[in-house]
Structures are given as structure tokens and as C-alpha cells.
């Protein structure tokens, strides 16, 4: 009978063991029958039964396409990619890493966030194979964006081109309006449309939850790059010149001529301040409704139009690149892209990273539509829309001056906090100089 006294602790230990095994989350789909041709995937090896968890900002249909583009990789290598997309990624990734609950792989939408994580010692440097692939497939600029303090951490994934101005070609044709070739022409066109009176020239929406204000940072960056040139742009994002430098304040004022002018905004929504209460995804809608002529938004706006909208030079809606201030200096564009960094360096994670840096992934993903990449191995003919093709050609053109989204390169305290808040205050009536001073004072010291 004495033995019974040990039964309870033994049972407790057993139950505990069960709990631990139950804590391992259930594995998703994947696996499946490998009937496809796997020869292209031999290089990644076999990792039967292994799992790679991936965390990113990408959700909804874009997430489905992303998962589809590595489905064959999963089938051929036996790796299950457990994907989790969250709009809260920017705030949660830091929390999760600090709490020791980091994913295996994180797809960073901002190099600044990547740098923060790398400096905090959370990320593993990229394997040599990934580094070689990036040398082969991307320009040195792109590799630089995945490098922190001389160590290469993250390969670029997809790209997007910012600074498109969306318009309805039919409206322009009916009214006899021409697509502007320079900034001055664009301002003249704006005046013409305002005088015409049938619609406001511009519509904008900066509301995006706690990231409210970010579409405005794109405006400022586009103008700094075009009006002040790439050198000033680089100095500005790396803080070699202060944020309240007169040239930056001048760029705020250039943008303000449009966004702060009640005659020019906000088609379909109301006055200047309605920019702040309008969601960025809905903000372009009035272009289709005929209550607004132009909408400034990145290439991904193509996905924000309602289903069935024809995006083409002769379709319902089309886009021109925000024109240069001085046309003789050539095209300069801003853009963005994701960086894939890893918190683990197991063989299956390394295989996954190598695949994501390859041109196979770029071609797979671009074929599914709604995405582009600056990967040189990407065939522009794989683009699923004329806009994507145009963007890929812009990105691959060696003549194009390309700069990464400035807010994404600034420290998190500025790029994903005070810059956004500054834009909000500025649209809400605070003078540009005061806004720039306030952002400058928030730049981390040292």
C-alpha cells in the first residue's frame, strides 16, 4: 500500500510530459505528394518533417500568393513552412524577440527594423550561400540594405515602386489633360483641374491605425529625392544633415502646396484634414468615381482597386511616375521591399533562405501577380500586369536612380514613430518648420 504514495507524483510528472508535447503547435498542411519535377529544388536538400515558421506583415490574398509561390519548395524538400501574417508585425516582432518567442524567419518590411533587431543581437547572419545568391541577383544597393555594421543579415524579397500618381485615362482624355513630364507641369495641371471645377485635383488618405501618417512620408521622400537629389536624400536618411535642414523643410512646403491647399484636396472626402481620417486603401476610390483626378500611391495601389477594375494605359485607371523636378537629371524613384532575416540557423532555415533569395522564387511569385522584385534573374514577361512590367523594367534599368523608402531607413524612433506623427501634425495645421524641428529632436542621440 505504501507504493500508492508515489503514484500521485508519478502521475503528475506524466501529465506534465503530456502538456509539453501538447504545447508544440499543430503542423499545417504541406507535405503532399511530390509529383512535380523537383530537379530545380535538389540544391536545397531533403528536410523531411522539418518546419520553418515565418512571420511577416503580409496578409490576405498577398499572403496566399506568397504561400503558393513556395508550395513546390515545400513538396520537394519536405519542409513545412508555417506562415503567420500580422498587420501588427512592426510592433510585435520586437515584443516577441524580447520574450524569446521569435519566429524562425521574419520578413521585415523595413531595413530600419531589421537593423534594430540585428543590433540587439537577435538575428543570425545570413549563410554564405544566401550572400552569394544576393551578390548574383541584386544590385549592391539592395545588398547594402540587408547589411548592418558590415555583417550581411537579410536578403531582399519582393519590391515595390513608390511615387506613382494614379489617374483615370478616360477622364484625362475627355478633358484634354496631359500627363505631366515635370513637377512644374504637374502643378500647372493641378491648377487647371481646380479651375475646371468638376472635381478636386487630388485625393489622399493617411489613416492606417497606429501607423497613420505613413503615406505622407512617401510624398515628402519623393520630393526630397527629386528636388534635392540623391546625395541630399542619403544624407537626410542617415542623419548627416538634420531633419530640420532648410532643404527638407522646403520639400515639406512643396508637398504642402498640394496637400494643404483646400482647393486641391481632398476629392470625395472633404477638406484638408479629412486626409487624416480617410483610410489609405479607400483614398484612391474617388478617382474611379470621378470626384478626384489624381491619387499618389505606391505600385501596390493596383491591388486596392475594386475587383474587375482594368488597370492599363487605356483602361479604367493607370499611373504615371511622379515627374522629376529637373527632367535633365533623369528618373529617380523611391521604393520599398522586404528583407528576410532569420532568428535561427538550422539547415532547413538555411535552405528556405537560399530559396527565397533565388530567381526561382521571384519568378514563381511574380507569375501569380500583384508583386514585383528587383531580382535580376526575374523575367519581366512574367509580370501579370502592364504596371508590374513597367515597374520591373524601371527597377532593372541601370540608369534609374533608386532609393529605398527613407522612413524605412531611419531609426524606428523616427521612421516608424515621429515622422508619421509629424505628418499627422502637419496636415492637422502645425507649420512645416515646427514639425521638422520636433522630428529632429526625436532622432536618437549618438
Amino acid at each position, binding site marked *: 500500500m505504501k507504493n500508492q*504514495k508515489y503514484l*500521485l*507524483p508519478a*502521475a*503528475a510528472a506524466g*501529465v*506534465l510530459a*503530456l*502538456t509539453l508535447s*501538447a*504545447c508544440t503547435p*499543430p503542423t499545417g498542411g504541406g507535405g503532399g505528394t511530390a509529383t512535380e519535377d523537383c530537379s530545380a529544388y535538389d540544391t536545397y536538400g531533403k528536410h523531411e518533417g522539418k518546419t520553418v515558421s515565418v512571420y511577416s506583415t503580409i496578409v490576405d490574398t498577398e499572403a496566399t500568393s506568397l504561400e503558393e509561390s513556395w508550395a513546390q519548395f515545400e513538396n520537394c524538400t519536405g519542409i513545412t513552412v508555417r506562415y503567420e501574417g500580422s498587420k501588427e508585425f*512592426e*510592433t510585435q516582432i*520586437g*515584443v516577441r524577440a524580447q520574450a524569446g518567442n521569435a519566429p524562425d524567419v521574419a520578413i521585415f518590411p523595413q531595413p530600419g527594423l531589421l537593423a*534594430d533587431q540585428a543590433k540587439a543581437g537577435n538575428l543570425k547572419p545570413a549563410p554564405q550561400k544566401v550572400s552569394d545568391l544576393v551578390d548574383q541577383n541584386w544590385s549592391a544597393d539592395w545588398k547594402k540594405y540587408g547589411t548592418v555594421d558590415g555583417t550581411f543579415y537579410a536578403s531582399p524579397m519582393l519590391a515595390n515602386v513608390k511615387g506613382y500618381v494614379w489617374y483615370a485615362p478616360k477622364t484625362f482624355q475627355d478633358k484634354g489633360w496631359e500627363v505631366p513630364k515635370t513637377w512644374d507641369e504637374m502643378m500647372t495641371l493641378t491648377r487647371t483641374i481646380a479651375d475646371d471645377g468638376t472635381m478636386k485635383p487630388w485625393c489622399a488618405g493617411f489613416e492606417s*491605425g*497606429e*501607423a*497613420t*501618417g505613413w503615406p505622407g512620408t512617401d510624398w515628402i521622400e519623393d520630393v526630397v529625392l527629386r528636388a534635392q537629389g540623391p546625395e541630399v536624400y542619403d544624407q537626410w536618411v542617415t542623419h548627416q544633415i538634420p531633419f530640420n535642414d532648410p532643404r527638407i523643410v522646403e520639400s515639406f512646403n512643396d508637398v504642402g502646396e498640394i496637400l494643404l491647399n483646400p482647393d486641391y484636396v*481632398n476629392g*470625395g*472626402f*472633404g*477638406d484638408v*484634414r*479629412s486626409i*487624416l*481620417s480617410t483610410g489609405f486603401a479607400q483614398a484612391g476610390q474617388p478617382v474611379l468615381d470621378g470626384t478626384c483626378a489624381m491619387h499618389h500611391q505606391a505600385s501596390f495601389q493596383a491591388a486596392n482597386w475594386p475587383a474587375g477594375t482594368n488597370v492599363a494605359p487605356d483602361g479604367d485607371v493607370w499611373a504615371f511616375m511622379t515627374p522629376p523636378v529637373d527632367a535633365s537629371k533623369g528618373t529617380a524613384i523611391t521604393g520599398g521591399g522586404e528583407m528576410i532575416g532569420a532568428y535561427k540557423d538550422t539547415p532547413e532555415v538555411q535552405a528556405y533562405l537560399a530559396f527565397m533569395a533565388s530567381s526561382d522564387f521571384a519568378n514563381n511569385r511574380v507569375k501569380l501577380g500583384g508583386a514585383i522584385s528587383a531580382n535580376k534573374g526575374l523575367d519581366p514577361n512574367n509580370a501579370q500586369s502592364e504596371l508590374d512590367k513597367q515597374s520591373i523594367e524601371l527597377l532593372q534599368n541601370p540608369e534609374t536612380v533608386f532609393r529605398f523608402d527613407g522612413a524605412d531607413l531611419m*531609426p*524606428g*524612433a523616427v521612421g*516608424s*514613430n*515621429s515622422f508619421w*506623427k509629424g505628418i*499627422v*501634425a502637419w496636415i*492637422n495645421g502645425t507649420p512645416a518648420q515646427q514639425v521638422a524641428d*520636433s522630428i529632429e*529632436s*526625436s532622432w*536618437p*542621440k*549618438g
Partner: protein
Amino acid sequence: MEFLGGKLLQVVIALAVFAAIIGLIMLLVDRAPKTVKDKVTVAGFLAPAAILMLVGLVYPAVRTSMLAFTDARGQANGMDNFVWMFTQPEAVTTLRNTVIWTVLVPLLSTVFGLAYAVFIDKARGERVLKALVFMPMAISFVGAGIIWKLVYDYRGPGIEQTGVLNYIRDALGLGPKQFLLDAPENTIFLIIVMVWIQTGFAMVVLSAAIKGVPTELIEAARLDGANPWQQFRNVTVPGIRGALVVVLTTITIATLKVFDIVRTMTAGNYDTSVVANEMYTQAFRAGEPGRGAALALVLFLLVLPIVVYNARVLRKQREIR
């Protein structure tokens, strides 16, 4: 379904583990030698709570206090974070808003809750009327924030309004208003959301307290010629004083910590930020854990006296009984 089944299994296992651990402790305590049995029993039963307190409360509190005196790189920087807090205009606005919140929310919630509780007391359909006001309590702060954001939604003049309030304003010919953008009254519009939630809590607790006031006292007051206001003022209110204090302090603490409503509705923009929201923004979005920790420390110091007062009142009441 598979997912739900897995979760249920985890819940069952977690409960089983809990029971097993408690059982294990009981067993071990029971087997202790007779001479030290009392001490072992006390230690055995206190240990789980004490360990959890140490790990989950004391350690983070100490660490946060230390963090409050460091910069973004973890280097000690003395009082810099506190200097920042009391000098930067935005940080000062944050503190000011927190004061407005903590004054208005407990006051309005309690007044409305008390008034409602008094008026519906012994009325027909009292339960239904109570449920109606209590229902917002069941909605999460984020949910309430989203609901009210839609209520306050704005479209320019001449465009069809999507928000109820602006629709009404338009119908009355007042023209639409940017409820969430116009400082400083936008803070009041956010406070309304919190009051909407907390009134139900105040009402339920106070209603129960009112029912505990002896009817003999009220009858005696009426026979002495007291009018209803005097009855309420001099009999009911003193009778429910304890409940009033609990309601006021509980809501005050909840309000000091308010975060979800502000983050959902304005993200702290337009001069509406409060300490808890700023704490999160600084620590996790701006990458300034030191500033976040400093704000957390200030928040803690603000809550502390209220908690102490609350505990003392409760203890005094227990002594009276």
C-alpha cells in the same frame, strides 16, 4: 474543428497539471516530519504564490525601475528620461490628458451609474433596464473603440455621411465635425467611450449597495419630513459610502491604465495620447525602452496611492463589521 479540439485538450491538460501540482504539494507537506510540520505547511502553501509573485511581479518591477534610468542602448543616463517626460511638449500633453481622464471618467461614470441605479430602483423591468446599461461592460475596449470610431466617422460637407453623429449633425444643418481630430475636445469624445463602458459597472455595484440600505432608515427619514433629495443625500449616500469608494477607486485605476481605446481610435495622435499608450509606443515602436519604463514607473506611482487608500478603506470596513 481539429483546431478547437486541440485547444480544448490543452485546456484540460493544463487544468490536470494544475491539480497534479497542488496534489504534489499537499502530499509533500503531509509527509513532513512532525516537529517542523507547521512551518513546512505554511511555506508549502505560500511558495507557489510567492514564486509566481517574484517571477511575474517583483522581478519585472525591479527591472523596469532600473530600465527607467537607461537610454535606448541600455547605458545609464540618470534622470534624462524623466527630464524628457516633463519638458517635451508632447510628453506633457500626455500627462495632462491622463489627469483629465482620471478626473472625468470615475466622476462621470459614478454619477451616471448612481443616478441610473437610483431611478430604476424597484422600477418595473429593472433587470432589463440594468442589463441594457451593463452590456457595454461585456465589450472589449478595442471592440468599443472600433464601434465608436465608426460612430464618429467623418466625411466632408456635401458628401453622404457614414458616421451616425455626423449624419445627425448634417440632418440638423450643423455640418459635419471631425470628432477625433479637433483638439482638445477630442479627448472628451474618447472619454465618453470609457464612461459608456464603466457606467454599467458603477450602476450594478451601487444598485446592490442601495438595496442594502435598511428601509427603516429611509422610512424614518420620510416620517421626519425629509424630501426625496434629502433622503438620498443624508441616508442613501452615507449608507453606500463604502461601495462608492470601491467604485471610484476601481474605475480610477482602470482609467489610469487606459490604453486600448486611445490606441484603437487615434493611436495617440491629435494630442490625445495618455501615459499607457505613450509607454507602449516608446518602448516597443520607437525603440526607447528607457522612456517607456520611465512612463511605466510614473504610472505605477500614480496608481499606488489609490490602491493603498482602497485597501485601507476596505480594511476599516472589515474592522467595523
